[in-house]
């Protein structure tokens, strides 16, 4: 069990709504971005002198550009339906982690500067100026939101705190007060095509190593092609899949599926990253630039389809935003959705009986499935609403004998975020991440204790990285974390059909 | 939702709220004196049991109060009786109903009493 130097929430018998503890998480600060990263991502390299005016002007601009922001700042009635829905509030008790209170951090500035009531009545209307103190609150608490959208499900008006925290981060970036983790990564993807900054040579080496590895294990020549012009499919995966564990086991799974299906595919060295951190910081331009890079790669390689790997926020960007940001994708085959999720791809093959699967290969695992927040609430798979829940489960049931559901109050549409999404997967935010993971850890613990579950499958690179790091704090081994295609990889029989 | 659809919804919402006002203004005209109920003149007396202004606001109190005393408590011979009203205000349709239909209020008296 990993040792925490802070108090852990009790996850036995589920996570209860805590009593509020004002300021409980105020001490957690992100590392500020360097000048180089701010400049590279199109923001001022240092805090601008008239930062307050610039910030308010940016806020005004964003309210004019985003219906969501304008409307959400106005219509909250503070009913409190969201107050106990955020995993960070449940894990920390800090009232500023209640979605409504997080929004209030921006709303009080909005009232002061953009409404009659706030200007007239000030404190009585809880209107506040954008002071250094308020800015510090923004820096802290808008980086304790993983933009998971759970609050928006329960809001009578569909207010999505993610929209507010994205706008807040865009405002902070625009005055030169950005977060190191996200901006560094965005700078890397602009430079190298992936978040990890992997150069092409290293990528080639990794893929060759994987080919040998799989050959050794299976005796089959499963290919991991790079930059292969004219391939049918371009496969875009989160770059963590190339190097991290357990991510890489899912990468092997994708490759085996393509091999078994006999469909040619290729990775791209120009766009070797599916994740799009531009959304985390609400930056339309950065999100667009990253998405466009992928579209360009597909066009250059002359592929007919784009299939995407296991990644949550990235899939939301791809599913919901790509067509707007980098479309139209008229160079691709119209018969396939753009993008196609690897789960859609695999499940369709399973339904056509095109894969030979040996479920018993996964008999050592009793598997449950974690719905990643942005897949669940920001995307769809298949043609029916809710396909994003059913399709990965269909795959798991086809590759495992023992499959168990977690409490639907903590999963599916109401799924709890892993606690590391939205640009929080950074060491200095570890306390927030560990505490924010409590509700999901509790749901997992329940099926581990009562139904013998030992594996939680998922389709998100951040979820995988986060859970392997934080679950040990709750006495859950990191080996419990698996990718869906990792289990596919175990079950799939090559050289058969 | 596209901008046209949104604008249509915005206009519909405002129109819905304004509808009763517009309907009344259109149906009754602008800059004309608002309609008022025309009442038949009382016969047999020149003064009511109480001042007219007070009666306008409070007549129902007398009627229900008296009803409770007379019907439920069996007390007879009170000062105000509905037959008394009818002595002067002889025609319900030209007196009671005028104001009641003007204000959209249904009197309870005639659930039991018959007044021509």
């Amino acid at each position, binding site marked *: 069990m990993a040792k925490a130097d802070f108090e852990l929430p009790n996850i036995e018998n589920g996570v209860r709504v805590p009593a509020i503890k004002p300021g409980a998480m105020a001490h957690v600060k992100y590392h500020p971005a360097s000048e180089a990263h701010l400049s590279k991502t199109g923001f001022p390299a240092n805090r601008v002198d008239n930062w307050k005016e610039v910030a308010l002007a940016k806020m005004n601009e964003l309210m*004019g*550009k985003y219906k*969501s922001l*304008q*409307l959400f700042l*106005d*219509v*909250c*009635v*503070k009913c*409190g*339906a969201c107050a*106990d829905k955020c995993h960070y509030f449940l894990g920390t008790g800090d009232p500023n982690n209640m979605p*409504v*209170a997080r929004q209030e951090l921006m709303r009080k500035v909005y009232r002061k500067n953009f409404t009659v*009531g706030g200007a007239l009545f000030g404190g009585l209307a*809880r209107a506040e100026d954008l002071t250094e103190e308020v800015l510090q609150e923004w820096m802290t608490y808008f980086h304790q939101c993983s933009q998971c959208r759970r609050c*928006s*499900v*329960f*809001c*009578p*008006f*569909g*207010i*999505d705190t993610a*929209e507010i925290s994205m706008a807040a981060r865009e405002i902070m970036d625009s005055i030169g007060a950005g977060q190191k983790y996200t901006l560094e990564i965005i700078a890397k993807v602009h430079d190298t095509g992936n978040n990890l900054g992997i150069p092409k040579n290293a990528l080639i080496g990794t893929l060759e190593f994987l080919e040998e590895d799989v050959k050794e294990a299976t005796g089959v020549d499963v290919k991991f092609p790079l930059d292969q012009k004219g391939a049918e499919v371009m496969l875009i995966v989160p770059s963590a899949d190339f190097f991290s564990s357990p991510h890489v086991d899912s990468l092997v799974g994708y490759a085996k599926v393509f091999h078994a299906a006999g469909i040619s595919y290729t990775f791209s060295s120009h766009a070797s990253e599916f994740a799009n951190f531009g959304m985390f910081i609400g930056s339309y331009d950065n999100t667009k630039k990253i998405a466009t890079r992928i579209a360009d790669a597909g066009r250059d390689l002359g592929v007919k389809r784009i299939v995407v790997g296991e990644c949550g926020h990235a899939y939301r960007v791809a*599913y*919901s*935003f790509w067509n*707007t940001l980098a479309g139209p994708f008229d160079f691709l085959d119209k018969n396939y959705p753009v993008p196609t999720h690897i789960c859609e791809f695999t499940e369709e093959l399973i339904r056509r009986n095109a894969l030979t699967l040996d479920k018993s290969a996964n008999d050592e695992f009793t598997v449950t499935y974690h719905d990643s927040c942005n897949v669940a*609430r*920001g995307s*769809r798979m298949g043609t029916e*609403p*809710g396909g*994003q829940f059913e399709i990965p489960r269909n795959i798991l049931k086809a590759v495992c004998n023992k499959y168990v559901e977690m409490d639907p109050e903590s999963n599916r549409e109401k799924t709890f975020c892993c606690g590391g999404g939205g640009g929080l997967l950074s060491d200095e935010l570890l306390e927030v991440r560990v505490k924010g993971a409590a509700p999901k850890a509790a749901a997992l613990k329940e099926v581990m204790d009562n139904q013998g579950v030992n594996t939680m499958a998922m389709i998100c690179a951040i979820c995988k990285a986060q859970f392997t790091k934080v679950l040990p704090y709750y006495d859950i081994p990191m080996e419990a974390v698996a990718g869906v295609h990792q289990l596919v990889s175990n079950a799939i029989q090559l050289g058969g059909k | 939702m596209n*901008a046209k659809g*949104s*604008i249509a919804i*915005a206009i519909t919402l*405002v129109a819905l709220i*304004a509808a*009763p006002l517009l309907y*009344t*203004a259109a149906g*009754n005209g*602008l800059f004309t004196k*608002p*309609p008022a109920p025309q009442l038949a003149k009382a016969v047999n007396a020149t003064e009511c049991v109480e001042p007219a*202004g007070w009666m*306008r606001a409070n007549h*129902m109190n007398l009627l229900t109060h008296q009803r409770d005393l007379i019907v439920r408590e069996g007390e007879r011979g009170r000062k105000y009786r509905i037959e008394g009203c009818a002595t002067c205000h002889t025609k319900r349709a030209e007196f009671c109903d005028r*104001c009641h*239909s*003007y*204000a*959209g*209020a*249904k009197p309870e008296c005639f659930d039991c009493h018959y007044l021509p």
Partner: protein
Amino acid sequence: MSGLSPLSLVYAVLSYAVTAVFFGGLLHKLWGYAVTPNPLNIATTPAPATRGGVIVSNIVNIATFSSLFKGNRWTWIGGYAFHVILLAVFARHLRLFLHPVPPLLVLIQPVALLGALLLPLPLIYLLARRKAVDRYAWISSPADYFVLVLLLLIGLSGLGLKFVSHSDMVGIKQFLLGLVMASPVDMPPHPAFIIHFTLVLMLAAYFPFSKLMHAGGVFFSPTRTMVDDPRERRHVNPWAAK
């Protein structure tokens, strides 16, 4: 407006000013919600994949507060009861603004009166709720209490008008019709009515500049009104079209 009593003159001017502020503010706000673009499709999924489906799901949510029900049953009970009762009370008051009065409005009076009688209950409940739970107390500002108290006072003064201090309803209706027909007549100088009417004017003037705009905003929420079809139909961002 000549020949009006000073009190009536003041209230006629106030009424017109409030009406202008109310409709002007409402139009301004709704216009903003309507024309501000959605650069990206941000439907909260699972969501209907067709426009028709979205319309149905929004009608259901607006008519039943289904997402609040999902969020918190106790808040739903108070909030939903309040809104239904408010609707009944509105219906009850329409007879004072319409001439002639539609028969249906006469028919529903007893139900609407029941509503008026009950109105204070959910308001007191909603007030108590804000005090009783630490999370709600933390997020509640003076403005949140102000609206509830204002509505409560409006309800109580209305009940006072009905049950304690009767006023000349015909005179009141004439006054209101006169305002609507741009031909003001004297207001019955009845204290209970003046209080009730003043509070309502306050509420109307406050409405467009407050959280009460949720009543209009709920129709425009992008997470709820956007169709989940971004792969099938390219959503074009109006301000990024290059």
